[in-house]
């Protein structure tokens, strides 16, 4: 259940003006990864490839040894990966509960149609009682992000990609949301890849991947991961 990036190269206009060149990375389950980098360094573009929202100029992204383009990006997004966005991206005509229930249905989750499962999941991220049945536009930023996380957790996808999930939140909410991601990785055994520019958030991850000067460098957290099984490695 490994997500692998091999020789990924991407540029927008000219090959010489590349964002990254021949990047190879491996992401294992039950690990929280934080990709840290300056604004404009290409972090979001990179996770959009991992999330199957876009394709790089060259290189291979494979899940369980299968090229995700061959799986089909729509099917990959539907079955294998789920995304949490900085701007929450919730269906604004739905309640918190309906957002989760509809995601269960779209992804054909084994819990599809199970409202109680959705209610429990929302409760586990702090959306309880009336909050669950309120229109999402009436919720605060932190609450909306919790709903987005609940939606990501609800589906059966083993990979969770989060693009600056704490970017719009205060310190307390940031800490709580990051802890939820930790639980998702360690308890739900999912591969969680999170983009952040917040060092405190990055420090809470199992593996920090730095994107600086168009180069990826990996820094494992020694107190969280044993050295004999590093959760992420730079290949080559």
């Amino acid at each position, binding site marked *: 259940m490994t997500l692998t990036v091999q020789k990924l190269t991407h540029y927008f206009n000219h090959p010489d003006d590349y964002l990254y060149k021949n990047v190879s990375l491996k992401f294992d389950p039950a690990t929280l990864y934080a990709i840290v980098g300056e604004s404009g360094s290409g972090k979001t573009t990179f996770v959009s490839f991992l999330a199957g929202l876009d394709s790089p100029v060259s290189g291979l992204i494979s899940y369980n040894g299968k090229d995700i383009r061959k799986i089909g990006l729509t099917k990959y997004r539907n079955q294998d990966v789920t995304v949490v966005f900085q701007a929450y991206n919730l269906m604004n005509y739905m309640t918190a509960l*309906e957002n989760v229930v509809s*995601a269960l249905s779209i992804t054909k989750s084994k819990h599809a149609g199970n409202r109680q499962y959705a209610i429990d999941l929302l409760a586990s991220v702090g959306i309880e009682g009336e909050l669950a049945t309120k229109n999402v536009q009436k919720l605060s930023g932190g609450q909306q992000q919790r709903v987005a996380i609940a939606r990501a957790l609800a589906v059966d996808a083993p990979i969770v990609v989060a693009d600056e999930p704490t970017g719009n939140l205060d310190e307390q909410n940031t800490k709580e949301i990051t802890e939820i991601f930790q639980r998702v990785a360690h308890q739900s055994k999912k591969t969680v890849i999170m983009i952040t520019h917040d060092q405190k958030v990055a420090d809470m991850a199992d593996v920090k991947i730095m994107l600086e000067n168009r180069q990826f460098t990996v820094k494992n957290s020694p107190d969280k991961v044993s050295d004999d099984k590093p959760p992420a490695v730079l290949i080559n």
Partner: protein
Amino acid sequence: MDYVKRAFLYLRRRIGKTLLLVLVMTAILTFMLAGLIIQNAALTAVNNSKNAVGTTVTLSANRAKLFQQNQGSASSSTQTPPVGRFRINEAIIGLNTAKKIASLENVAAYQITASASVNASSFTAVLSSNSNSNGGFGRMQGTDSGDISVSGLSSTAANSNFKNKNYVMKKGRGITSSDANTNNVIIEEVLASNNHINVGDTIKVKDSSSNVKNLKVVGIYQAKTSTDQTFGQMQDPSNTIFSSYTLASSLAGDAGKVSNVVYTLTDSSKEKAFVKSAKKIISGNLQLTTSDQIYEMLTSSVKSIESIASKIVWIVGIAGIAILTLILILMVRERRHEIGILMSLGEEKAKIIGQIFVETISVLVLSLCFAGVFGSFFGNSVGQQLISQQNTSQQSLRSGFGGPGGGNPNQAGPNGNATGSGNPSNSRAFGGQMRQFGTTLTGNSQLNKLSTHVNIGTLLELGAFGLVIVAIATLLGAIPIISLKPKRILISE
């Protein structure tokens, strides 16, 4: 929650937009329904009139030729014909000719008609309330017209007025073919009552040569329709006496000649062959008019309405597609973010388009209900407006032909039979080809009142049109979705 439930949820939560869409769709469908109602009503009227006209061929005088001949003889004469006496004798069909044609193949039945004007001698004609106030056409056209019109025919049972129950036998019996060469007549109830005449009595009339004739009353009928007052006293149905065509010809001084014969054919496909054979028998002063021609004349106005309605349906349909497509394109633009979220969750584009389709179909169903209510009123008012315009223009046209022969399409003349027997009052002075047209309109009142009611069939037809509009508009409106990329919508660096 699948895309169908999502569609209903969207419609409920975005009620303002939904109502706006329902309003636009209702407007489109109302116009379309009005067109369909009028079109269907017109088609029904055309079909009904075709049935009413049946497959018949009418033998009558060729008025145009007779008119030319009359003019020729008048110009060669040194004397100017007296004013008001210029008329054409249409009773020029020899009975032998009529019967020879009747013996041709494919003739199922035939109705011979003749008419005459006589003056009451042993009784008094019924006076119309305004018969002397404006004279009416009858009085204006000739001074030799009597106060009683004699309508001769083969059989009253085949006469449309009796068929349509406009005239009903009250006592005695009607005229049949066995009454040929007899003086048997049937008279109207009011005339009989005013003059204390009963079945079996003999009445006396004076013909055009002032000869007194005895007529034996074998039946009394009741005319349920009133006459158009502009036609004067003689046009009052109470002053119409029905007899065998032989008696009418004899009273008109044209013994052995009749003015009109209508042949009913067994097979409409052999109409042309019949006309071809019949033309070999008749002289140049006679003409044969097929029911197709009559049908064409009858239905021209309704066909014109049908054509207008058809254009309305098409124009509204195309405009509807254009309007709805534009709305859907704008809607997709506005909902790009929502579509991006769905795509990021791995929803198929087909299902996203499906959601929009379900939403639009739901709006269509609601709009159909509203259009069903509004379209009926709208269609009725537009339909009647069109009818009235068409009738106005047609009546102007008839006036141009110079006589009431065109008749009042709303009303059957006393002798109006479906086979075109002519106006008995003074058929030789009036009418012409238009007379036949006018009298044939009897029984075709459906042409003057379209049935503009909404029925299930029309609603289903409208639904089918609506479905096509929605399908095309959704497909066109959804084109931008095909090229949408979730990253461009949801993530911006």
